[in-house]
């Protein structure tokens, strides 16, 4: 069965600093990989997704993620965070066999001024 681990429940970063949010997955085959962001009182929004090709995938608002098959990881990065990036970030995987998202437990991103 697939599973997703986000080891950091909370990450605090200074505004303007770089960011990495970690995600590791467990799956017998490479799944579709997603990063979603959840702002307070708003719906989950897709930042980016990956299935194949270039392991570095670009997303919205300057986010990117890098897939590593050897490490079973899909870490999210941003070069310079803004206060508006404060939110909860979820990593998720999905298989074509059932098209249901398996979610990580989320990482709350706190931006220090």
């Amino acid at each position, binding site marked *: 069965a697939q599973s997703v681990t986000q080891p950091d429940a909370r990450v605090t970063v200074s505004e303007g600093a770089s960011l990495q949010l970690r995600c590791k997955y467990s799956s017998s085959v490479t799944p*579709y990989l997603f990063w*979603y962001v959840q702002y307070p*009182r*708003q*719906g*989950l*929004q*897709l930042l980016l*997704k990956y*299935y194949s090709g270039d392991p570095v995938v670009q997303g919205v608002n300057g986010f990117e993620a890098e897939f590593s098959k050897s490490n079973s990881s899909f870490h999210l990065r941003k070069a310079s965070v803004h206060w508006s990036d404060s939110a*909860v970030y*979820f990593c998720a995987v*999905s*298989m*074509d066999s*059932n*098209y*249901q*998202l398996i*979610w990580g*437990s*989320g990482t709350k991103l706190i931006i220090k001024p």
Partner: protein
Amino acid sequence: NSKVIQTPRYLVKGQGQKAKMRCIPEKGHPVVFWYQQNKNNEFKFLINFQNQEVLQQIDMTEKRFSAECPSNSPCSLEIQSSEAGDSALYLCASSLDWGNQNTLYFGAGTRLSVL
């Protein structure tokens, strides 16, 4: 920005009461998912539809929930007899087509509190 509309935003029910929530998917999106997000940010897939047909659902949904996506009306998810453990954020998402290559657009959710 997502145009999936979920109502109500908040729902408070007593144990044993019915709890009904609605979802208007994005226009032209025939695929609809419902997920439950609890206070620990654990997500549970509940059910999905393509057009009006249920494609997948978990046992809990089949036994305790009533869900439908009629044509030209909002989709709905109703708990027949609410339990304390049902307190959660219920998320509806829609997609243009079946398959992971199609983006799921989520609504803001209905937050259910069962007292």
